[in-house]
């Protein structure tokens, strides 16, 4: 039975159906990332850069 399915056509049809659902004004996207996420990302990167520079300059050996 599965062999009779046109795989390409099925994928295209299903994708189109799902994109139409996502385009609908009623569709609820997953909760967005907040400011706190961006703050923690930047904080992690800045602290890491400072520690790396201290090692590169021989302050931490």
């Amino acid at each position, binding site marked *: 039975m599965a062999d009779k399915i046109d795989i390409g056509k099925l994928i295209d049809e299903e994708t189109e159906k799902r994109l139409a659902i996502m385009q609908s004004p009623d569709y609820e996207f997953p909760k967005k990332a907040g400011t706190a996420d961006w703050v923690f990302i930047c904080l992690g990167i800045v602290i890491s850069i400072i520690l*790396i520079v201290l090692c*590169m300059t021989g302050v931490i050996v």
Partner: protein
Amino acid sequence: MSSKTDYIVQETVTGVVPMLNKERKYNFWDLFLSTSGFSIATWCYTQGAYMAEYLSFKQLLINIFCFNIIWIFIECIPIFFAVRYGIDLWVWLRSVLGIKGVAIFATVISMANFGWYGVDAQLFGSSMINLLRGFGIDLPMDIWKPILGVGCVILGTLIALGGPEIIKWTSRVLVTALLIVGAVVVVLCFTSVPLADIAAVQPHIEGSNLVRFMTSAEGSCAFAFSWSTQALVIPRLCKSESKGYWGTSLAYGVVAPFFVAAGGIMAYAMFVKTGVFESDPTNMLATLCGPGFSLLSLLMVAFANIGTQGIGSYVNCMIIKSGLPKLNYKLLVWLAAVYVSILTIWGWVMDSFGSFISMAAYIQGPIIGMTVVDYLIVKKRKLSLKSAFFMKGHDAYRFTGGFNLVGLSILVISFVTCILFVYNPLTGDILSPVFLVLTGSGYTAICGGLLYWIASLTPLKKYMLRDRNDLEIV
């Protein structure tokens, strides 16, 4: 009808059809544990032991954690779109490399990624032989290492065939146990050899502080980059952008480096005890903690490597499907098993491990740079999903015969200039002071991102942003 429904479910979970919000099954812990299970493997210890020869204890910890945190936190930023639209990185990359460009690079990069799993299987084989030797069973390495390695590949393949649900439950149990084991290993190392003795070990490799530090940093960056093309496949299963991002980035940026650091600490402890830097975790644990501890190392090595094979196979087959969506997932998993088995028996990747990871990172670096710049600055987080999925009448990402010549040219320029002018991983030659600031891998990512941004400021912008009138789903 039921087989059609089954097939749709299969193509959503193990295919590239976008996953709707209500279908997501992974929370933070599921994603964190699955990704951690993927990232923990014996190669972490190998990497840590290799770096321990170049650095002091304090520098080792900073090198491992800080370079990984920087690059993982950056390369995981596009996870926000992966979760939002229920798609993976490679669907977005159709807008950066072109539809045919993705088909080619998705296949090439997955073929390269599978090299890691050949290494993983080989390390599994040698660790098992060493372990059995501890119990008085002496197996010839030449014969049994590939046989046990292929066994590891087959067990991993069975997990991959089960799909995300099997991976989720396997990870919940195994990874929790492995994290506890990892913590116990570090504590035992510190109790076996005093911390002061470990901290007093001087770098074994000669050279200036900066050269040693940045040569090790090349390994850390390449390690971080190795996850990049695989990192954005599983988050599409997650329920919120924040959980998707942190579940992935903490696993790759903190948990995997923790096991690399554990490998380094064990190598220091072994050096203090025996005067030799050792990289096989089974030998290290048996020497440092006694033969009774071998059972714990068996658990650690066996399950970690099999889990990595399973999740790695799922992720990389999904990457190939992103480029070639109509391939059958199960067939692909079995083909991958055959390919990894051949790599395991051949052994070339293991013999050229350092060069291999850097060369792979040089392809992944420009892709990381371009993806982040494209997402945040050039496309400003908006993609034409209909063009990305080749819907009729939506051709923004067909570019030139299916190839985005701007993206592909930048990838080639970054790769070639790094090998010719910055750092050649095949010879180990540092060719420019740029290496001592950015590393070779870091250069490829920054160069790729910078060139892509500059190109978007020129008349090429029109070519790169053909989709601005086709943004229907935002």
